[in-house]
């Protein structure tokens, strides 16, 4: 384990974060946007665990954060799906370009 410096793990998590951001910016489907958000959350989890393991091996705080993040992400995904379904009912589409009521 010690042969892998922490920067490499952080590289992975950063890359995963920005891949998720790319998906968030680019995808037109609301569900795929949700998937990108999940990727972002996962990258954050990896970060927490890595820091816990490499920098604070005696404590468990990173792990707890990870648990809570997973929990909240689950709740948020559920609510997001509910909203998407509601929006689908009114707009008959889940294309995010169709939901432009915030326009000037």
């Amino acid at each position, binding site marked *: 384990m010690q042969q892998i410096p922490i920067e490499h793990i952080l590289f992975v998590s950063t890359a995963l974060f920005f891949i998720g951001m790319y998906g968030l910016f680019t995808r037109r489907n609301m569900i795929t946007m949700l998937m990108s958000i999940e990727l972002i959350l996962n990258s954050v989890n990896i970060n927490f665990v890595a820091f816990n393991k490499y920098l604070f091996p005696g404590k468990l705080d990173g792990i707890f954060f990870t648990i809570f993040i997973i929990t909240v992400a689950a709740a948020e995904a559920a609510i997001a799906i509910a909203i998407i379904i509601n929006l689908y009912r009114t707009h008959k589409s889940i294309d995010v*370009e169709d939901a432009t009521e*915030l*326009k*000037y």
Partner: protein
Amino acid sequence: MADYSYIALVPLLPLATFVLLGLAGKNRLVKWSGYIGSATMLGSAVISLYAAYQYFFVNGKTGDAYAEITALRYTWLEFAPGLSIDMGIILDSISVMMLVVVSFISLMVHIYSVGYMKGEERVTTYFSFLSLFTFSMLALVVSSNIFQIYIFWELVGVSSYLLIGFYYQKPSAVAASKKAFIVTRFADLGFLVGILILAFYSGSFDIGTIINRATDSQSEAFTGLVSAGFLGMSALTWSLVLVFAGGAGKSAMFPLHIWLPDAMEGPTPVSALIHAATMVVAGVYLVARLFPVFYIDEIAMQVVTYVGAISALVAAIIACTQTDIKRILAYSTMSQIGYMMFALGVSGYGGEEGLGYTASMFHLFTHAFFKSLLFLGAGAIIHFVHSNEMKDMGGLRKWMPVTHITFLIACLAIAGVPPFAGFFSKEEILLAAYQSDKIVYGIGLFVAALTAFYMFRLYFSVFWKKEAADASHHGEGTWSMKLPLIVLAGCTVVVGFIHFGNYISSDGAPLPTHFDIRFSIAPVVSAVAGILLAAYLYKKESDRPAKFATALGRLYRAAYKKFYIDEIYLFITKKIIFNLIGAPAAWFDRNIVDGIMNLLASGTARTAALIKGMQSGRVQSYALYFFGGVVALAILLIYIWI
């Protein structure tokens, strides 16, 4: 010193009437408005007469001369310690005289109007305006502060505007009222600049202080005034000439006289009060008030003299050719005021030298009586004949006896025939002119002859010329119209015998006037000559006047057209001022000033339109901007600031 603070009632009573009648609306109090107005004017007149009695006969004198008494003073606007606009009442020999004149004539006019304006709608409004005017004029003559004079000066102008335009349905009346107001306002611009110059150098707005400081050759005010100059004339000259310009506008001096004939569109009692006896002498009063300061400046005195003389001459010439009875009287007023002006101009200061001053004030006093009498008589005639033109009148002596006699008395007075009032005052003016400037004396003598001529031309044309053809369908007029005529005629006869020099003179000390029979020959002879010429031409209907007119040819035509001065003014305003100054200014205002505002507004709108594209409603764009902002902040904080 006695307490004269009850003088404040004299202007305040008409003010109260104005407020009461003004608030009553045009149709209420119709029967009572005349009586209310007359009653308050009676009160004012009585108080003025009482105050005059007190001042002149009881306790006005300090030492040997009549002194200025400050009855009331109230500091109103203070700009700097010592420089404030106070509201105050001063009593001086001329202000007391003016109080008596204004309140008495106004009383006569009020009584006359009760009969003249009967049946007219908006009678209440009429009497409220009359009271407003009387209030302003009374307050003007007792003002202690030159700015207060200016305030009431303007107020008098406004009242005149309201009264001239009383018959507002007539477009000619509306045009006349506007003309009067604009011309006098234009003159008042000069007045204001003059006030400011005087006040700046004297350090005060108070008239007494200005006179003291400006005439004292040791004071810094005096040195300031004579040393500062502009275009070759000293500040003193400029300020006095400008102040005189304001006075000239209000007194209808040449060339600012154009409003006075047109002002005859107002009701005749208004003409009697305002444009004969009181408002138009405000300019003369102003010069008399500031006389010690005027006296020390040669150029200003020359201006006053020659403007007065020229006005007298021009007005007399024009009056010989006019056919509208009121216009003849208007030009006659202008001519007589010209007399008053040049009398002040040729006057000296102090003792014997101050004869011109006394003469001018005396003529003002007597002129008020006979001129208002003439106008009220003209009103009775117009009321009878229902027309202003002389050709519709003739042979009226049978139908209007009272008017006939009083009108004759007034004509004799204005012509300067003894023993009526005008003879004494005009003779003193001519004496003062003879003692200082012979040219002006010559002009005065010639104008006296012309005055007699045109006044008797008017008299003979109205009362003698032809046999009255129309049966008198109604009487001469009610008692309310006859009573003022009789009273004023009585005054005209009596007033000439007042030894005016005892009471009013340039320095307050009594001025003994000698009565030189030999000197009075020339004026009386010229007056009688004028009367005889008028009788020859006009007593019976004939074509002699027409032949006379064609013999004079071009001169007659020019005089008939009032020397084309109105046309010159119209040309200057329409072609020059409107096109060269007004139009570019309007263009500038519309395109540049408004344009800048519109540019700002449209620029803002366009910028907003550009920016609003950012709110597209697309969540992903928002996310991109958000991310961009975070990165920018991060770079900023990490690399640049920390």
